[in-house]
C-alpha cells in the first residue's frame, strides 16, 4: 500500500520542477472551468433578474391569452392575432357569481404606433388598458392622473405616457394638457409615468390609452390581446383559474377542454417557463464551454504521455525496488487529477471574479437590477468536472506507465 501523502509529495515536487509546462498544460482546463463558472453565475443572475420581473406581476395575477396554448415559443407571437377574447368575456368574468375569487378584471391590448408632437416623433408601445392596470403592474405616476372608468366608458381621447416618450416628444417642456397625434387622431396627455428602468414591459416607452379608445381608433379591433384578472388571495388562484375556464368555455360554447380557444398564465407558470428557458440556454452554453474541457483534457493526456516517456527510467527504477503496476498507475493518475484539479480551482476563482466584475458592470453601468450570485453547486461541479477530466484523460497515460516492464524501463535511454 502506497501512502497518499507520499504520492502527493512526489506529484507536487514533479510539478515544481516543471512549473511553466504545468501552467500551460492546465490552461485549457482553467479556460473551460472559468467559462462554465461564468455561464452558471450569469445564467443564474439573468434568471433571477427575469424572475424578479415576473414576480412583479404579483402572485395573485392571472393572465388569459386568446387562441390555443402555443406549443412552442415561436408560435406564441402568432397567437396575438387570435380574436377569441371579447367584451362579453370581460363582463362575464366581472360577475361575482361566475368568478367569486376574482376581484379585478382588466383587458389589455398591445401594439405599436408613431406618436407625433409638433416636429418630434417617437415609436411608442401602445397599451390599451383600464384603471386597474396601474395596480396590477405597480405603475407609478410622476404627474397627472391615470386612465379612469369615465375615460373607458366615453372612449376618451386621453393618454398617459412613459418617461421616455415624454422626453423624446416634449424634452423639458410641459406635457400635461398637450395633444399628441397617433394614427391621425389627437390625444390629450393626462399623466406621465415615473421612470421605471428595464423591466418585463418597458413602461418608459409606452403610451397608455383607455382600451375602448385603443380598440376603436388605434388597432381597429373588437377583441383583447389579454385579459388580466387579480384574485383575492394566493390560495384562491387555482380555484379562480377553474372559474375562469368554466365561464369562458360557457361563453364560447366549448365542451371539450382540449378545444379551448384561450389559455391561462399565472405567475407560477410564467416562473416555470422562464426557468425552463434560462436553464436550457445555460445548459446549452455550458455544453459549448465543455468542449474546451475536452480539448484541455486531451492536452493533459498529451503532456502526461510525454511525462511517462521522459520518466521511463524512473518508472523502471520504482518497479525494480518494488512498486506494483497499481502503485505506478496511482502515481500518474494522481498527477493528472492534481493538475486538472488545480486548473479547476484556478478556474473557479477566475470564474467567480469575472462574474463579480460582470455583475458590477451590469448593475452600475448598464443599470440592471443585477445581483451577483455564485451558486455553491457550481463550485462542486467545477471541482468534480476538472478532477473527472484528469481521471479520464490520465487513465491512458497511467496505464501506459504501469504496463512498462521494469527492465525495458531501466534500459531506456
Amino acid at each position, binding site marked *: 500500500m502506497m501512502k497518499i501523502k507520499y504520492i502527493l509529495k512526489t506529484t507536487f515536487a514533479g510539478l515544481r520542477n516543471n512549473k511553466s509546462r504545468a501552467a500551460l498544460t492546465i490552461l485549457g482546463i482553467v479556460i473551460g472551468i472559468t467559462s462554465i463558472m461564468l455561464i452558471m453565475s450569469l445564467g443564474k443572475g439573468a434568471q433571477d433578474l427575469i424572475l424578479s420581473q415576473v414576480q412583479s406581476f404579483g402572485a395573485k395575477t392571472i393572465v388569459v391569452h386568446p387562441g390555443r396554448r402555443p406549443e412552442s415559443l415561436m408560435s406564441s407571437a402568432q397567437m396575438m392575432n387570435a380574436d377569441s377574447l371579447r367584451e362579453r368575456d370581460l363582463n362575464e368574468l366581472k360577475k361575482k357569481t361566475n368568478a367569486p375569487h376574482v376581484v379585478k378584471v382588466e383587458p389589455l391590448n398591445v401594439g405599436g404606433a408613431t406618436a407625433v408632437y409638433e416636429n418630434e416623433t417617437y415609436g411608442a408601445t401602445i397599451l390599451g388598458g383600464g384603471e386597474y392596470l396601474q395596480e396590477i403592474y405597480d405603475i407609478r405616476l410622476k404627474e397627472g392622473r391615470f386612465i379612469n372608468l369615465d375615460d373607458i366608458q366615453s372612449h376618451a381621447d386621453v393618454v398617459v405616457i412613459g418617461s421616455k416618450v415624454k422626453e423624446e416628444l416634449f424634452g423639458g417642456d410641459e406635457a400635461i394638457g398637450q395633444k399628441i397625434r397617433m394614427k391621425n387622431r389627437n390625444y390629450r396627455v393626462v399623466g406621465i409615468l415615473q421612470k421605471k428602468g428595464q423591466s418585463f414591459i418597458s413602461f418608459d416607452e409606452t403610451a397608455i390609452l383607455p382600451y375602448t379608445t385603443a380598440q376603436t381608433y388605434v388597432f381597429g379591433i373588437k377583441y383583447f390581446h389579454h385579459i388580466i384578472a387579480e384574485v383575492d388571495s394566493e390560495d384562491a388562484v387555482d380555484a379562480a383559474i377553474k372559474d375562469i375556464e368554466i365561464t369562458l368555455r360557457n361563453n364560447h360554447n366549448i365542451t371539450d377542454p382540449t378545444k379551448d380557444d384561450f389559455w391561462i398564465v399565472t405567475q407560477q407558470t410564467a416562473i416555470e417557463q422562464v426557468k425552463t428557458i434560462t436553464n436550457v440556454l445555460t445548459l446549452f452554453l455550458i455544453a459549448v464551454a465543455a468542449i474546451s474541457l475536452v480539448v484541455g483534457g486531451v492536452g493533459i493526456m498529451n503532456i502526461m504521455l510525454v511525462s511517462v516517456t521522459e520518466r521511463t527510467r524512473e518508472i523502471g527504477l520504482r518497479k525494480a525496488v518494488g512498486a506494483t503496476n497499481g502503485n505506478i498507475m496511482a502515481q500518474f493518475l494522481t498527477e493528472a487529477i492534481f493538475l486538472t484539479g488545480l486548473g479547476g480551482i484556478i478556474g473557479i476563482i477566475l470564474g467567480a471574479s469575472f462574474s463579480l466584475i460582470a455583475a458590477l458592470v451590469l448593475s452600475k453601468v448598464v443599470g440592471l437590477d443585477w445581483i451577483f450570485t455564485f451558486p455553491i453547486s457550481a463550485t462542486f461541479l467545477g471541482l468534480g468536472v476538472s478532477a473527472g477530466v484528469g481521471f479520464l484523460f490520465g487513465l491512458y497515460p497511467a496505464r501506459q506507465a504501469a504496463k512498462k516492464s521494469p*527492465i525495458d524501463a531501466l534500459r531506456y535511454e
Partner: protein
Amino acid sequence: MNKMALIEVKNLEKIYGEEGVETPALRGISFSIEKAEFVAVMGPSGCGKSTLLHILGFLDRHSRGNYLFDGKSIGEYTDDELAAVRNKKMGFVFQMFNLLPRTAVFENVKLPLVYSGIKESLWEEIAMKAVREVGLEHRIFHETAKLSGGERQRVAIARALVNDPQVVFADEPTGNLDSKSGGQIMELIEGLHERGRTVILVTHETYTAEYAERIIRLKDGLIESDLRVSARHHKGDRFIK
C-alpha cells in the same frame, strides 16, 4: 548439502525476438546459488551476464527453462507478488546508479520503503541506518546530482539495503567508477555478504570478481566454467581496475 538453494535455474533460455529475428541471449544454463553465497558472474560483453542477472532479479522474464526462487517457480508468482519479492527480498545496484533525478539522498534511500507497507513514521529511522552503513550521513539532504560517482553508488547501495534484503544484485557496480571509489564500493558489497546476505555480482573485471567466493563464467549464452575462487580479495586489499 544441507543448505537450501535460494536460486535454482535449469536449462534457462532467453531469446530476444524483435521484428521476427530471434536473438538468443541465454541458451540453456543450469546452476544453483545457496543462501549467503557470494557469486560473481563474468564474461565478455554480449555473453548474457546482465540478462541473467535481470532474470534472477525478477526484472525480466526468461523464455524457456525453469527458475526457482526460494523453492518456488517464477511462473507461480503474480505480478504483484514479484513486486513484493523485489521490494522485500532483493536489492539492486546498477552500473548507472539509477537514482531519482533532482531528489535528495535521503528520498532515494527511502524509495523502497514507500512500497513496503512499513509505517511512514519509521522511514526516517530505517533509512538513516542504511545511510550510516554506507557512510553518507553527512550528505542526506544533498541532491544526488551534486555527488561524486562513488557517493552516488553508495546511495544506491543504501537504497538496496534499506529493506534488509536476502539477496543483493549488483550489475557492474564499479563500471563507472575510478579505482579508489571502486574499492570502497567493493568493500561495502563484501560487507553485505559478511553480514549474511546472498550477493550476485555481474562484472567483466577479473579483479572485481575475485572478491566473490565463486565465479560463473558465461560465453555466448552458455556457462563456460563455474569455479570457486582460491585467492579472494578482501577489505584492505588495494583495488585494481
